[in-house]
C-alpha cells in the first residue's frame, strides 16, 4: 500500500530533461558536452574564417592563385602527401578547394582528437570514480548506458557539424573574390559531414578499445591510428608499399570527397559510417560483457619499471617518475611529427624559392623567421600543428602535476616533515625536467633526420667564396682556391635571419657580380635551387661546415642572394 501511494507521488521525467538535462544518461552526457561543443565548433569555425581570410588576402587574383597551384604541383610527392593527403590537391585555386585541402591539418584532425578524448573517457572515467556502479544498478541496461553515451556524443558532433557547415558557407560569402569561390550550402554541409564522420571514426576506435585496454591506452592507440593513417595515406605516393595500409584508412577512402572543391563521394562516407558503427557496436558489446570497475579490464602485461626509476628517494624523483612516461611518449610523438616535416621541408623550401611572390607572402605571414629556409618551414609546421601537440603535452603534464591534490594524496604528503614550499618547488622542478625530456626526445626525432640528410646536401666550397678571393675578380667567373671561414662568421651564429648573410654583404655583392652560367652538376637534376648553387660556385656531395645557417637562404628574394646554403641546416 505504501508503495502504491508513493508511486502516485512520482514525478515523471520531462522530455526536455531526457534530451538535455539530468533526465537520462543521454541527456546528462549532452549536458556535460556543452563546453566541448562550444570550444570545438568555435575553433573549427574560426579556423575556416581565418583560412578564408588568408586566402582572399594572399591570393586575390588569378595570377597569384596560378603561382600557388604551380608551387604545390611542383612539391615533392612526400611533402604534398603529408600536407594535402594522397593525390594532387583539387581546385586549389578556389577558396573552397584551398580550405578543403587544409594545409595545417587542423580541420582534419581536431574532430578526431575530440572524439578520441571524449569516447575513451566517457565510461572509463565513471568507472574509475565509482559513479558507474550507481548508474549500472538502475533499470538501464549496460547496452543502453553505452549506447546513450555514444548517441549523446554523436549528437554533440552533429551540433558541431551544423555550426561548421554554417561557418563554411559564411566563409564563402565573406571571402569569395573570383568566380568559383562561392561555397554552396550543399558543399558546406557535405564538407562538415565529412569532418564529423571521420572524427567519429577515430573516436569509435578509442571507444571499442577502452573496455579492453583502459582509457589512456585506448586513446593512444586511436590517436596513433588516426595520425598514422593520415601519414601513411600521404606518403603512399613516395612509398608504394604504404598503399596496402593506406587503403585501410578513412583518409584514403574519402580522398575523392571534396565538397568544397565540387567533388562528392557519398559512398565513401557511407563506408566510414559503417565502419564507425561496427566499432561502436564492438565497444558497446565489450562494455556489456565485461566486469565493471576501475581496474576491471583485460590487463596488458607490461614489464614493470626498475625500482631506480620510481623515484622513491624524495619528492623531486617521485614527481619526475610520475611525469616520465608521459614526457617520453609526447616527446616521441612530437619528434616523429617533426621528423616527417623535416624530411620534406628542404624540398619545400627549394620549391618555394621558385615562386618569389608566394615566398614574400609567406614571409609577411611569418615575419619572425624565414619561411624559405628548412628551419623556417619546420617552424611554420609547428606553428600550425606542432604547437597544439605541445600544448596537449603540457596539459598532460599539468594534469599529472595537479594529481597530487586531485587524487587526494597531497594531504598525506604534506603531513610528512617537509614544508609546502619544498613540495611545490620539487614538483615544479620535476615539471621542468619533464619538459626538458619532451624537448630532448623531440629534438632527437628532428635532429636524426637532419643528420641523415647532411651528407647529401649542396654546400659551398669555402675556398671559392672567400671575399678576398672574390674581390677584384667581378665578372670573371668563380675563384677556385681556398679560404677559411673568418672568425667573424662564426660569431654571427644564432642571429636573426636578416643578420646572417655571412660573411657579409661584400660576399653577396661579389657573388651577384660574378654570376656566370652554371655548369651541369652530375649529382642533381636541373632545378632552380641547384642551379643557383652551381651559379654561386658551390658543389655537391660532401659534408659542409657546421657553422652554416639555414637562415641565410632567402631563395625567394632576388635581392638577397644567399651566401651559405644549408648543408648543416639548423633550427632557428
Amino acid at each position, binding site marked *: 500500500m505504501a508503495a502504491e501511494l508513493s508511486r502516485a507521488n512520482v514525478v515523471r*521525467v520531462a522530455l526536455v*530533461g531526457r534530451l538535455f538535462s539530468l533526465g537520462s544518461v543521454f541527456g546528462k552526457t549532452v549536458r556535460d558536452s556543452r563546453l566541448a561543443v562550444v570550444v570545438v565548433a568555435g575553433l573549427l569555425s574560426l579556423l575556416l574564417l581565418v583560412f578564408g581570410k588568408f586566402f582572399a588576402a594572399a591570393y586575390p587574383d588569378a595570377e597569384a592563385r596560378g603561382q600557388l597551384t604551380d608551387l604545390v604541383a611542383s612539391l615533392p610527392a612526400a611533402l604534398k602527401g603529408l600536407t594535402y593527403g594522397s593525390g594532387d590537391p583539387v581546385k586549389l585555386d578556389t577558396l573552397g578547394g584551398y580550405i578543403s585541402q587544409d594545409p595545417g591539418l587542423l580541420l582534419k584532425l581536431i574532430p578526431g582528437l575530440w572524439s578520441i578524448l571524449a569516447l575513451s573517457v566517457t565510461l572509463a572515467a565513471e568507472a574509475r570514480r565509482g559513479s558507474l556502479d*550507481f548508474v549500472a544498478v*538502475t*533499470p538501464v541496461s549496460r547496452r543502453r548506458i553505452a549506447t546513450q553515451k555514444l548517441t549523446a556524443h554523436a549528437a554533440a558532433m552533429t551540433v558541431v557539424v551544423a555550426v561548421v557547415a554554417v561557418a563554411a558557407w559564411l566563409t564563402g560569402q565573406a571571402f569569395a573574390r573570383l568566380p568559383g569561390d562561392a561555397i554552396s550550402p550543399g558543399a558546406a554541409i557535405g564538407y562538415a559531414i565529412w569532418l564529423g564522420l571521420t572524427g567519429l571514426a577515430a573516436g569509435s576506435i578509442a571507444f571499442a578499445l577502452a573496455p579492453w585496454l583502459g582509457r589512456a591506452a585506448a586513446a593512444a592507440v586511436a590517436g596513433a591510428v588516426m595520425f598514422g593513417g593520415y601519414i601513411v595515406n600521404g606518403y603512399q605516393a613516395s612509398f608504394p608499399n604504404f598503399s596496402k595500409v593506406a587503403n585501410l584508412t578513412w583518409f584514403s577512402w574519402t580522398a575523392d570527397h571534396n565538397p568544397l572543391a565540387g567533388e562528392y563521394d557519398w559512398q565513401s562516407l557511407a563506408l566510414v559510417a559503417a565502419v564507425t558503427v561496427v566499432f561502436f557496436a564492438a565497444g558497446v558489446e565489450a562494455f556489456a560483457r565485461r*566486469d565493471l570497475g576501475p581496474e576491471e579490464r583485460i590487463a596488458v602485461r607490461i614489464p614493470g619499471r626498475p625500482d631506480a626509476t620510481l623515484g622513491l628517494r624524495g619528492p623531486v624523483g617521485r614527481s619526475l617518475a610520475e611525469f616520465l612516461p608521459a614526457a617520453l611518449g609526447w616527446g616521441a610523438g612530437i619528434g616523429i611529427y617533426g621528423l616527417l616535416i623535416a624530411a620534406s621541408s628542404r624540398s619545400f623550401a627549394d620549391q618555394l624559392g621558385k615562386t618569389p611572390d608566394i615566398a614574400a607572402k609567406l614571409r609577411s605571414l611569418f615575419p619572425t623567421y624565414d619561411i624559405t629556409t628548412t628551419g623556417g618551414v619546420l617552424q611554420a609546421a609547428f606553428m600550425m600543428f606542432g604547437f597544439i601537440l605541445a600544448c596537449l603535452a603540457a596539459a598532460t603534464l599539468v594534469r599529472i602535476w595537479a594529481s597530487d591534490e586531485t587524487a587526494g594524496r597531497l594531504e598525506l604528503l604534506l603531513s610528512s616533515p617537509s614544508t609546502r614550499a619544498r613540495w611545490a618547488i620539487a614538483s615544479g622542478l620535476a615539471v621542468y625536467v619533464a619538459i626538458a625530456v619532451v624537448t630532448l626526445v623531440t629534438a632527437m626525432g628532428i635532429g636524426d633526420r637532419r643528420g641523415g640528410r647532411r651528407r647529401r646536401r649542396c654546400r659551398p666550397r669555402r675556398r671559392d667564396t672567400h671575399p678576398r678571393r672574390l674581390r677584384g675578380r667581378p665578372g670573371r667567373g668563380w675563384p677556385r682556391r681556398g679560404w677559411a671561414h673568418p672568425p667573424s662568421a662564426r660569431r654571427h651564429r644564432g642571429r636573426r635571419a636578416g643578420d646572417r648573410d655571412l660573411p657579409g654583404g661584400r660576399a653577396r655583392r661579389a657573388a651577384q657580380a660574378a654570376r656566370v652560367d652554371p655548369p651541369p652538376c652530375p649529382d642533381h637534376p636541373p632545378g632552380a635551387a641547384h642551379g643557383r648553387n652551381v651559379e654561386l660556385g658551390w658543389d655537391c656531395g660532401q659534408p659542409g661546415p657546421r657553422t652554416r645557417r639555414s637562415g641565410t637562404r632567402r631563395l625567394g628574394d632576388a635581392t638577397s642572394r644567399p651566401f651559405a646554403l644549408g648543408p648543416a641546416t639548423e633550427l632557428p
Partner: protein
Amino acid sequence: MTAVIQTENLTKSYGAHRGIVEVDFAVERGEVFGFLGPNGAGKTTTIRILLDLIRPTGGKAYLFGVESTTDPLAIHRRVGYLPGEFALYDRLTGGQTLEYFANLRGGVDRAYQTSLIQRFDLDPSRRFREYSKGNKQKVGLVAALQHRPELLLLDEPTSGLDPLVQQTFFEVLREAVGEGRTVFVSSHVLSEVERTCDRVAIIRAGRLVLVDRIDALRDLAAHVVEVRFAGRVPAAVFEQIPGVSNMIIEDRVLRMHVAGPIAPVVQAAARYELEDFISREPSLEETFLAEYGQEVVEMAGRGR
C-alpha cells in the same frame, strides 16, 4: 519464507588473485542480513556479483528467484545499492545528483526523497566535490534508499557517518524492514552488525566461515578476565577450573579466557589477596577471530 538472495557455490577468481570461493548463503525476505569479514575478505566482490557488476567464475546467484546474469534489469528495478567506495559527479550538486539517479529509475516519490534528505541532515545545494566524506556518504545513502527498493544492498554504509547520523540510518533500516523490505549489510565492524542484524555470515580469505543467527554467535563469546594478585600468581588453581583457556602470566597479572559460567573463577580468585579484577565480554569480532581465524587461514592455505 522466500529467499530474496540465494547463492550456490559462488566463485570468482581474478587470475592470480583470490576472489571468493564457493560461497553459499541465503537471505530471507524481511530480514537484516549482516555480511562480515575483515578487509579484503571478499565482501564487495560478493555484492558486485549479486548485482551483475562482475560475473562469477563459477556458481550462481539468484535475487528474487532471478539468476543474476540472465536478467539483471529485473533485479536492478527492485534493488537499492550503496557501494563501499564511490565518488559521484563533482560538478553536480547533491540535489542534482539525487535527481539524476531518480530519473534513471523513472522518477521517485519526491516527498520521501525530501524526508530522507531532511533526516540525514544533508544540504542538497552544495556541489558534490564540496561535501565532506560523511556528507558524500549521505548522498549515496539517499540515492540507494529514495526509490524504496525491496532489497537494500549496502556495502559498509556507516563509513564516515557521525554517531548521530548512524542512529538515523539504523532507524531508516528498521522502518524499511518494518515495511517488509530486506536489507543486506556488509561491514567489518561487528558491533554495528550486532545492533541491526538478525543473521550474519562471516567471510574470511574468500571463504564463508559461518552463517548463523546473531544470538548463536553471542553464545560463542567467552569472558576475558584479568586478575592482578598482590603476591605470586597461583596458576595451577585456575588451570583446573573448567572453561578456562588461553592463560597468560605476566609478573603478578593473570589473563585468561573463560567460557561458560564465570562464578568458579571469581570464587577461586577471592581466596587470594587481589589488587585488581577485570572481566569483560569480548566483541564478536574477537570471538570470531579466536574461534575461526586460524582454521580458515589453514583452509585457505590448503586451497592454494
